[in-house]
């Protein structure tokens, strides 16, 4: 898994959620732009976008009826979708740290983690 295998990044969020804004959507969006990746965000309070959000989370993410946000997904060049992050109910500080960790991980750095 290296950065050049990623085609795009998808984030499910809500405008009112401090785990989403400014904690997740902005830094992930900036990183995607920096790496030239497609960036898609789905607002769960937007009637059109929530359908895509629900499908993404039901098929690939941490699904529960009243699911947690934010959730971040990578779309790989081979078309597979990989769930990589869910917000931490323990507190915004943990979500902030997790986003920083994710953006510093081999996914976004270009080095391949051993698997």
């Amino acid at each position: 898994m290296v950065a050049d295998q990623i085609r795009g990044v998808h984030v499910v969020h809500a405008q009112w959620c401090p785990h989403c804004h400014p904690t997740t959507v902005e830094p992930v969006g900036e990183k995607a732009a920096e790496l030239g990746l497609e960036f898609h965000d789905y607002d769960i309070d937007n009637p059109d976008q929530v359908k895509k959000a629900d499908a993404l989370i039901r098929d690939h993410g941490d699904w529960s009826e009243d699911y947690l946000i934010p959730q971040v997904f990578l779309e790989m060049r081979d078309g597979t979708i990989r769930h990589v992050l869910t917000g931490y109910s323990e507190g915004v500080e943990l979500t902030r740290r997790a986003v920083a960790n994710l953006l510093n991980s081999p996914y976004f750095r270009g080095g391949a983690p051993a698997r």
Partner: protein
Amino acid sequence: MEVARSILATTAKCSHCSGQAAIEYLEGGSIGVHVCPGRYVSRIIAYGNPLDLDRFREFVQGAVQGTQRIDDTDVRVASRYAWDLGLDRASNDLILKEMYWTQNYRRAKSEDPDRVALFFCANGDSFFVQAVQGNERLCSKCRNP
């Protein structure tokens, strides 16, 4: 798993007293409870891989006794991986899953100052319920040994 749990062991602001809720463990560490000095429970968390939603819901239902009905909607799930926990691991597989139940949240939210709420005994042995404003810090067994 042990390392991951220690990363997750943060304190959180208590929603009922604005004090700090720290985490205490039950069931051999597979359950965490966010509890403030007044012993109000803000959150119950299950850790594991895999996790059993029915079992966790029943656990929370047992904790709140008959004071409310716990539905699937009241439980939220999250996957934690090496990369987002900040663990430098050779393997990037899933480290653990968490399930959360949050007291007085969304569907179950109430502003009634006399509502009955869930507390966790200061001796760490059991949950008990009392009015949200109540000052009791011990379960009934510990109060009347």
